[in-house]
């Protein structure tokens, strides 16, 4: 049913329909409205979950780990400093192969303290073994939760997943969102079927320590599962499309890329602005397109390579910076194209800490890219440096 909802509430409605049995979360801006909405649903008995009011994000994910290991479907949400506080547990959850789904309301990292949007928080957790899916709008944020659980819980995957959507830009924006019914979601996402759980009738040890003799093989298994997740995501996304009419079979999505000379590459809400700018530039006769990255982990290298095969210039918009190198998305794209493409890949660090991006900024990036000027912060205010 189509409803006009705040992004956070659209996500909460999605989470409710995924029927988590345990929710543990600590409030932090701009994630707060999600967990408040879920707490209300539990308080009204609209959602049959145990909501644990933990004392920190560190404990939130730790409690989720325990609840998941004991066989329940669990949920958490966080952002920025909260995600950073979970850092240690994030690696542990992936290492113990618990299919936890967590929403990230993307927000800049301090210092300086900044509550507004960029994607530095989740990008900084890219190596933890979590899948990372980025939503362009609130409809996608809603839909990716059903898909994330189904991919995470697939027995060929069994990895945790972050559903990332931009703080404030999406979390606090009202948009029409088509929310599936509970029955529809139940049919798409059956009850969690755990594999190895804590059970007194069948004792096993989880999270033991492994010597150099075995540790490498555990890491290898996680990597192989992440590779398998690419195929599983495509299958689940296609199934979602057949069921709900919105296709997510692609880990990437191309927009007017077919004959493009210049391709912009981006993740998250900025893609909406880029699409509008691309339309304008197309009217001006510029052959421009967008490649949207929906899944950053697993990274769809083959798909990116294929999508950018005919492009001469690639302009990557990175809402993050790996200090001492470049933006993380640009590095991934360069790696995907290495050895197979003559395209020039230029990186633009943009929209950090919530700085607004307009269509004219996207046009300006394309102008710079066409001149071969890139690998820089876009729109730096040199007068305050």
């Amino acid at each position, binding site marked *: 049913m189509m409803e006009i909802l705040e992004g956070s509430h659209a996500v909460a409605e999605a989470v409710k329909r995924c029927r988590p049995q345990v929710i543990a979360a600590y409030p932090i801006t701009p994630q707060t409205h999600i967990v408040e909405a879920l707490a209300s649903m539990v308080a009204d008995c609209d959602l049959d979950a145990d909501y644990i009011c933990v004392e920190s994000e560190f404990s939130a994910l*730790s*409690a989720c780990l325990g609840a*998941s*290991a004991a066989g329940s479907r669990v949920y958490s949400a966080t952002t920025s400093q909260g995600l950073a506080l979970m850092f240690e547990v994030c690696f542990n959850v992936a290492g113990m192969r618990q299919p936890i789904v967590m929403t990230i309301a993307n927000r800049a990292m301090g210092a300086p303290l900044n509550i507004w949007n960029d994607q530095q928080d989740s990008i900084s957790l890219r190596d933890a073994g979590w899948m990372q899916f980025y939503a362009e709008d609130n409809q996608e944020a809603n839909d990716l939760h059903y898909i994330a659980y189904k991919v995470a819980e697939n027995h060929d995957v069994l990895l945790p997943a972050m559903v990332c959507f931009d703080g404030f830009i999406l979390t606090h924006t009202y948009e029409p969102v088509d929310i599936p019914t509970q029955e529809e979601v139940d049919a798409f996402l059956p009850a969690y079927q755990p594999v190895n759980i*804590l059970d007194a009738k069948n004792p*096993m*040890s989880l*999270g*033991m320590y*492994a010597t150099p003799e075995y540790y490498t093989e555990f890491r290898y298994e996680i990597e192989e599962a992440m590779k398998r997740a690419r195929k599983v995501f495509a299958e689940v996304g296609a199934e979602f499309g057949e069921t709900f009419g919105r296709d997510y079979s692609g880990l990437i999505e191309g927009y007017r890329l077919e004959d493009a000379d210049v391709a912009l590459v981006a993740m998250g809400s900025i893609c909406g602005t880029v699409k509008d700018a691309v339309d304008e530039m197309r009217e001006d006769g510029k052959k421009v397109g967008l490649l949207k990255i929906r899944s950053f982990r697993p990274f769809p290298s083959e798909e990116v390579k294929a999508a950018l095969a005919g492009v001469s210039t690639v302009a990557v918009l990175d809402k993050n910076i790996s200090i001492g190198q470049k933006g993380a998305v640009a590095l991934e794209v360069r790696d995907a194209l290495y050895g197979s493409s003559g395209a020039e890949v230029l990186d633009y660090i943009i929209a950090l800490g919530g700085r607004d991006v307009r269509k004219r900024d996207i046009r300006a990036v394309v102008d710079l890219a066409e001149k071969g000027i890139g690998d820089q912060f876009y729109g730096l205010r040199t007068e305050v440096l």
Partner: protein
Amino acid sequence: MDQESELFQCGHRACGGCGPALAAKLILKGTGPNTIVVASTGCMEVFSTPYPETAWGVPWIHSLFENAAAVASGIESSLKKQGRDENVVCICGDGATFDIGMLCISGAFERGHDITYICYDNEAYMNTGIQRSGATPYDANTTTTPVGKCSTGNPRPKKDLPAILNSHGASYVATASMAYPNDLIRKVKRAMEIHGPNYIQVHTPCCTGWGFDGSQTMNIGRLAVETGLWVNYEMVNGELEHVRKVGSRKSVDEYLQVQKRFRHLFRPKKNEEEIAKIQAIADHNAEVFGVDRK
């Protein structure tokens, strides 16, 4: 003893005479098989679960050094939602309990989860090489509170964790010693029957860290109680209910001089002043808890 029926099995890699290993065995006799154990990083995790082996005959999970109480909170919540009824018991060392895990323990107790948190207290970070923790007693020589020209060892008394958890509204708080096995088992059994967050702190001498022969673990444990440096008591809903009395308390000298961690108090000459301070700690314990049998 019938090894087949033990829930904490032989073959683990603990030192000969390890107090915590014996405590684990006794604790599981108290919990019984219908129990999920949550561990923190520490000696016990290292010596009992080198992959692909495990000494645990009950479901066991280790996540991190500091989050056992939070993981246990999630497990308890998960079991409740599934309508399952298993005991959730944390078994963690003193570093994980007194120091790095305090945030998670405080949260779990304040929320009132139905879990029993058992700390095996060997009074230092033992598996990383005997560094001080908040449970290390006054004047103990550790590698981070070393004895030197200007130092007589650890400069601070042991943190009173049972008091802290009592103030959190714990249902049941008890101290025990692995040197009094039946008392320890009884207290664990009792905790299993009391709903809400329970805490048991078990004194577990560490032959390697404290510096005594592995055959003497039980004797050292008993001496701690007989001197009043360790008191075995039970508190229910914040009220002191039972204290193990001592007929005629031994002087702390007897306990201190048989451990290398206190050797500096006796060599090259006896440090009467420092030993008097430790005796005062024992006397204070005796007075507060009414240890002396009148």
